[in-house]
C-alpha cells in the first residue's frame, strides 16, 4: 500500500488534535531528546517569517493601518477569495470526471491519459499564463484564426477570467491526484453492494462513490485554492488585483514595509481560515470504515456510446493544459531571435542546485517532525506538526518578503543558503506529509524489536525505520524538488545578484517581451520537470490484488 504515499503527500492533514493510531504503547512515553529537540528547532524555523511579520505589524505606523483599512483592501481580499473558490470549483469539475475515467472505466489508453493528465504539473503556472495570453489574448493565435471569419475582437482575457482559466489549467492535477487516491482507497465491495441492492452504475456513483469521495474532493479543492491564494506569477501577468499583487506593489513602492507586512498577515489569516474550514468539512465525515480482508481491484465500467465524448473531453483538457503551452513556447523559440539566448546551461544548473539542496535539507528536517507526530502523539507533537504545516498557509511571496527583510540585517544577505532556507520553510509541509504517511506504515513493533536487539533509538530509526520508509522519503524529496524548481517569487526576491535560475530568466525575459529568450528556459524547465512528474505519477498506481 505504499503506492498512495505520493497522493497523500499533496494533502495537508486534518487540523485536529486527536491522537493518531499506530503509536501503540509509545503514546504514553515521552519522546526522546534526539527526536523532540530537532523537531522543535524546525518548528521555530518555520515561525521565523511569521514572527518577523508580527514584529513589523506591531511597529506599523498609523499610515500603514489606515491604508490597510481602506476599501481597496477589502476588494483585494474579495478578489483573491473569489478567485480561489472559482479555481477550486473548476478544477474539481475537471478533476472528478478525469479521475473516474482514468481509474474506473474502459477508456482507451487509460494509463496513458492518467499520465498525460498529471503532466501539466510540470508547467509553471506563470509560463502557462504567458502561453494563455499568447493563444487567447488580444492579437493572439485564436484571434488570428478567427479574423478571416470577421471576428475582430475577443472578449478581454485579462483580469478574473484569464486568471481563472490559467490557474485551473495548471493546478487541476493537484485535485486529480487527490481524487484518484480517494477513488483507489474505496472498497470496491461497497459499490458492488450497491449494485446488488438494485442501483445502476450512475445511481451507485451518485449515492455511494461520490459521498465517500467527499474528503478527497475537499482536499483537492483545498490544494488548488491554497495554490491560487499564494500565486504571484499568474495574477501579475493577468493584471488581476489579487492579494499577492497588492503585497508586491506595496513592497516595491512604499518605503515603509509595514504595509506589506500587514497585508501579508491578512493573507495568512485568510489561508488559515480556509484550512480550518476544510478541516471542519473533513472532520464531519467521520472515520473511514474499518477495512478487514483484502481489497480487490475495482471492476471496469464500460463506457459504451460515451467512449467518444470521454476521449474528446480528455483530449481537450490535455491539449489546453499541455499541448498549448508547449506549442506556444516552441513557436516563440522558432520565430524569435535565438542568437540572444545565453546562459541557459548556467541557469539550469542553478535551478537544479537550488532544487536539490532544498529537497535534501527539507527531507532531513522533516524527519524528526514526522517521527514525533507519528510515534509520540501528544501536545508537543501536535504543536510542532501544526507549525510545520504552516508553510501551506505561507504564500511564497510572503516567505520571500520576510526572508529578504530579515536577511538584509544578517551576513547571509544575498547568499544561496538564505534562499534554500526560505524554500525549505515554504515546502517543508510536502516533505513532512509524505514522510508521515510512510512512517505510519512502519510498525512501531519493528523499532521495538531493534531496540530489544540492542540498538539505540537513533540506530533503530536509521537501520530499520528509514530504510522501510524510504519510498515515502524519496517521494517527498521528489515533490519538493519539483515545486522548488518551478517556484518564482522566492527565487526572484532572494537570488543573489547575478545568480539567475530558469524561473527568474523566464520572468525577466517575458517582462521585456523577449519571447524567444523566455521560451528557451521555459522549455528547459518543463523538460526537467516532466520526468520528475512522470516518476511521481508512476508511484500513483494502485496495488493489484487477485481474485480468489
Amino acid at each position: 500500500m505504499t503506492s498512495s504515499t505520493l497522493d497523500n503527500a499533496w494533502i495537508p492533514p486534518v487540523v485536529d488534535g486527536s491522537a493518531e493510531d499506530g503509536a501503540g504503547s509509545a503514546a504514553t512515553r515521552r519522546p526522546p531528546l534526539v527526536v523532540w529537540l530537532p523537531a522543535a528547532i524546525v518548528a521555530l524555523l518555520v515561525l521565523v517569517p511569521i514572527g518577523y511579520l508580527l514584529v513589523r505589524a506591531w511597529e506599523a505606523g498609523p499610515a500603514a493601518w489606515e491604508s490597510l483599512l481602506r476599501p481597496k483592501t477589502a476588494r483585494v481580499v474579495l478578489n483573491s477569495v473569489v478567485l480561489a473558490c472559482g479555481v477550486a470549483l473548476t478544477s474539481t469539475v475537471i478533476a472528478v470526471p478525469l479521475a473516474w475515467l482514468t481509474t474506473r472505466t474502459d477508456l482507451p489508453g487509460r494509463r496513458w491519459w492518467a499520465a498525460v493528465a498529471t503532466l501539466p504539473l510540470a508547467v509553471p503556472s506563470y509560463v502557462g499564463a504567458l502561453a494563455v495570453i499568447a493563444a487567447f489574448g488580444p492579437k493572439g493565435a485564436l484571434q488570428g484564426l478567427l479574423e478571416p471569419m470577421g471576428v475582430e475582437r475577443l472578449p478581454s482575457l485579462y483580469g478574473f477570467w484569464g486568471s481563472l482559466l490559467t490557474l485551473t489549467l495548471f493546478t487541476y492535477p493537484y485535485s486529480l491526484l487527490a481524487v484518484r487516491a480517494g477513488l483507489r482507497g474505496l472498497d470496491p465491495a461497497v459499490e458492488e453492494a450497491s449494485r446488488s441492492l438494485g442501483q445502476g452504475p450512475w445511481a451507485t456513483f451518485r449515492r455511494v462513490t461520490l459521498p465517500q469521495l467527499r474528503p478527497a474532493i475537499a482536499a483537492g479543492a483545498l490544494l488548488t485554492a491554497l495554490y491560487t491564494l499564494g500565486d504571484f506569477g499568474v495574477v501579475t501577468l493577468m493584471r488581476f488585483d489579487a492579494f499577492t499583487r497588492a503585497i508586491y506593489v506595496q513592497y516595491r513602492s512604499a518605503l515603509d514595509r509595514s504595509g506589506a507586512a500587514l497585508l501579508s498577515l491578512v493573507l495568512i489569516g485568510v489561508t488559515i481560515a480556509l484550512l480550518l474550514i476544510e478541516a471542519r468539512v473533513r472532520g464531519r465525515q467521520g472515520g473511514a470504515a474499518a477495512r478487514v480482508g483484502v481489497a480487490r481491484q475495482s471492476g471496469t465500467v464500460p463506457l459504451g456510446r460515451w467512449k467518444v465524448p470521454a476521449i474528446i473531453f480528455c483530449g481537450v483538457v490535455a491539449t489546453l493544459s499541455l499541448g498549448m503551452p508547449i506549442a506556444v513556447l516552441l513557436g516563440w523559440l522558432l520565430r524569435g531571435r535565438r542568437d540572444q539566448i545565453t546562459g541557459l546551461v548556467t541557469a539550469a544548473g542553478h535551478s537544479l542546485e537550488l532544487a536539490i539542496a532544498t529537497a535534501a535539507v527539507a527531507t532531513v528536517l522533516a524527519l524528526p517532525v514526522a517521527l514525533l507526530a507519528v510515534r509520540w502523539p501528544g501536545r508537543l507533537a501536535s504543536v510542532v506538526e501544526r507549525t510545520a504545516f504552516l508553510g501551506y498557509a505561507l504564500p511564497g511571496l510572503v516567505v520571500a518578503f520576510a526572508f529578504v527583510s530579515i536577511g538584509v540585517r544578517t551576513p547571509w544577505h544575498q547568499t544561496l543558503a538564505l534562499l534554500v532556507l526560505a524554500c525549505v520553510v515554504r515546502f517543508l509541509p510536502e516533505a513532512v506529509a509524505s514522510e508521515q504517511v510512510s512512517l505510519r506504515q512502519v510498525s512501531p513493533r519493528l523499532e521495538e524489536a531493534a531496540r530489544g536487539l540492542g540498538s539505540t533509538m537513533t540506530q533503530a530509526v536509521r537501520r530499520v525505520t528509514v530504510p522501510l520508509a524510504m519510498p515515502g522519503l524519496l517521494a517527498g524529496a521528489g515533490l519538493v524538488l519539483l515545486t522548488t524548481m518551478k517556484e518564482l517569487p522566492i527565487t526572484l526576491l532572494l537570488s543573489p545578484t547575478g545568480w539567475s535560475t530558469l524561473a527568474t530568466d523566464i520572468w525577466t525575459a517575458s517582462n521585456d517581451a523577449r519571447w524567444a529568450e523566455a521560451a528557451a528556459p521555459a522549455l528547459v524547465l518543463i523538460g526537467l520537470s516532466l520526468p520528475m512528474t512522470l516518476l511521481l505519477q508512476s508511484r500513483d498506481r494502485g496495488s493489484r490484488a487477485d481474485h480468489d
Partner: protein
Amino acid sequence: MTETQMLPAALACRGLRKTFGGSPVVDGLDLEAQPGELVALLGPSGCGKTTCLRMIAGFEPIDAGRITIGGRVVADAAAGSRRADPPEQRRVGMVFQDYALFPHLSVAKNVGFGLKGGSQQAAAVHDALAAVGLAGYADRMPDALSGGQQQRVALARALAPRPDLVLLDEPFSNLDAELRVALRQEVRQILRAANATAVLVTHDQEEALSLADRIAVMWGGKVLQQGSPEELYLRPANRTVAGFVGDAQFLPGEATGRRATTDLGEVPLHAPATGTVDVMVRPEQLRLTPATVEEPGNAVVVSRAFFGHDQLLTIALLGGRTLRARLGAYGGIRPGDRVTVSVRGAALAFPQAEGTSSSR
C-alpha cells in the same frame, strides 16, 4: 414436498466457466439450490468458489454456461442467446466478506439503501433491524459497530429488499472463534425466518456441516459432490471429498465382496468391491481395547491429545502404519499401552489411485 418440487430451482448454474489470464478458475461448474434451502459451497482457498459467487451476483462475466435464478435466465454465454443482466437487475442480496457497509451512511440508511422510498421504507428498515436484533442501532454509523454487529447489518441490508437469492461470501471469517459459532446459528435462524434461499461460500468444513442443508464440495473449479452434510460425511463420492469433509485416513487393502483385508485385519465394507482398494476409516470409527493375555493387541499408543469432550490418540500398527483414533474422554488408555484396534460398522472402499495423497 411435492409442491416444492414443482417450483423452479431458486438457483441453477449449468457448466459455468471462467478463465483468468489463460487458466480456468471455474471449469464446468454445476450448482443448484431449491427454494428456502441453504447451500454451502465448500472448498479450499483458491478453488474458485468466490469467483463462482461473483458470477452469480453479476460482478464477473461468465465465459461459458448459464445461470438461472428463480426460473429467470440472468446470464447465458451460449452463442445464440448471449445474456448478462447487470447486478442490479438480478434480485440477489450479497453479504460480503468484509461486509462492505456504506461508511458514509447510518445503519438505518444502509439497510434502507435497496428499498424504494416512501412510508413503507421506514417500517421495512425497522423490521429488518429487529430481525437481526439491532433495533436500537438505527442511527449508529458503521464504524461505531463491532464486527458481529456489522455482520448482522450487512445481512439485514441484503435481506431487506426481499431478494430471490442471498449470497454470503465467507461471512464469518473475520470474526473470532466464539462469536463465529454463536453468529452461525443466528444467521441460520434469520435466513430461515425470512424463508430465504442462500448460497454460502466457506472453506471451513465445520461451518458448512453445521449450517447448510446441502453442501457442494468444490475443487479445481468443479463441484465434486453435492449432498446433505450426512451424505457427504458418511458417503463421500471420492477420496478428495472424503479428505476435505472431515478427517479421513486410508488403509490399503485387498477387497473381496463386502470384506477387505488390511493391516487392521478383516474390515467389513459398505458396498462390495474387488481388488486393491483404499479403505477409509474416520478416527471416530476406530475402537480400541486394551491388550490382554489372550489378545496381545495389534497396535501401540504413540501419543494422546486430550480435548475435554474427547481425545485423539495416535497409534502405531504392528506393520508400522500410524492411525488416529478419536475416543470419548473417559478411558484409561495411555501412550505406551498396547491395544487391539478394530473398525466400528462398515467402511467405504475406494479404488486405489496412483499418486494421490493418502489422507489429510
